[in-house]
């Protein structure tokens, strides 16, 4: 299972607590993880990436294994620790405030 963490607003919107567990088939990439996330929680469509272009929203970042993956290709394989479920794929809202 792929572990995904969501920012609080999106957890509330999706009516979930804690991490989300997803079954992802095929190669584990940002695109396949987000496809699975949106299929499981359709109310999140458009909140992480644009509904038409599938580009990451400007104030949303992706982290995993202490790396910033926000600017990686959506089709690049994610670290093996994500694929094995050892580490979560973290969807984070950019920090606001001082």
């Amino acid at each position, binding site marked *: 299972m792929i572990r995904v963490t969501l920012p609080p*607003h999106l957890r509330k*919107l*999706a009516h979930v607590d804690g991490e989300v567990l997803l079954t992802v088939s095929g190669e584990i990439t940002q695109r396949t993880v987000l496809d699975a996330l949106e299929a499981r929680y359709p*109310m999140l469509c*458009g909140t992480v990436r644009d*509904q038409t272009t599938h580009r990451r*929203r400007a*104030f949303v970042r992706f982290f995993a294994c202490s790396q910033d993956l926000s600017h990686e290709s959506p089709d690049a394989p994610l670290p093996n620790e994500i694929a094995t479920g050892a580490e979560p794929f973290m969807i984070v*809202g950019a920090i606001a405030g001082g």
Partner: protein
Amino acid sequence: MSSVRVLVGTRKGAFILTADAKRTDWKISGPHFAGWEIYHLKGSAVDPNRLYASQSSGWFGQIIQRSDDGGKTWHQPGTPEGESTRTPEGMPKAESNKFVYDTSSETGKPLTTHQWYDGTPHPWEFKRVWHLEPSLTDPDIVYAGVEDAALFRSSDGGRTWHELAGLRGHGSGPHWQPGAGGMCLHSIIVDPTNPGRIFIAISSAGAFRTEDGGKTWQPINRGLNSQYIPNPTAEVGHCVHHIAMHPARPGILFMQKHWDVMRSDDAGESWHEISGNLPTDFGFVIDVHAHEPNTVYVVPIKSDSEHFPLDGKLRVYRSRTGGNDWEPLTKGLPQNDCYVNVLRDAMAVDSLEQCGVYFGTTGGQVYASADAGDTWTAIVRDLPPVVSVEAQTVP
């Protein structure tokens, strides 16, 4: 006995204020959608329990919410009719609503750019829904005014949205540019006697009218004079802040422009100034008494660079003559050290026999008058900054 429901959108959630017809004891429900910006909520005139809300966030985008029970419960209206709105596991099923600009050659001229603040071409980018206007005859039909400026329509209760592309495509779209708050379509008025006629207004492009339900549009800005644009009497480019109409006189429009309070007696074909004796004619809101089509309300703001009341005194001004002669309404409003703003969609009237008037401030107060503005009380004082106020008279 009738009651009143006041729908309040704020920077950090929605609030629903209810009272009986006396309008003295208020119940406050909320925050709904806590932490999200709620630009606007509005109820259907046909079914008062059908409410639509625009929930948005600079981080996570646009969500449309709908209530079918007067705001007690909400859902994203993407679930097919007849199906449960929740999965067997209890999850909401609806997807967020898509607002995709129409660039097909069949329905409108493809438009790719408007003007940016510096006059350079800028691509059209959807940001949020500013205003939701339910149809006057069908609770499932609702219009959405969005930023970057465009008009969308849903005929399935908010489940799917389609742009009325003739507005952006009528010719002047490439010359529109944003005001300080963004390039937003903020005012939508449907003519109750002619459903094909719709008025809209955009900051900072101006006012527009369709006679065929949104297929074709024309600018209606003749008579506007805006000294802050290169050609002060240009066909488009005026920063219209809000427009209002009394349903009994759909050809008469009132406008609060960036500066100037204006009136049209010919459905927008021409405008004339009615600022009269106002202490300043800058402002955002304008509204009309529910039963007196010549009674108009504004809240003068000091200037375009100082968005607060003149002299620290929060005053609503009322004209009973359709403009020019204005009287300050101050009883119950702070008359010293008040430096809040009242944003363009943050005033509303109810339709009880003694017309109620409501407005919200960026300081989080919602003021109510149960006597057409003679006296005011704060229903609530410490909400997040108020973006919009709508009033429903519930049978």
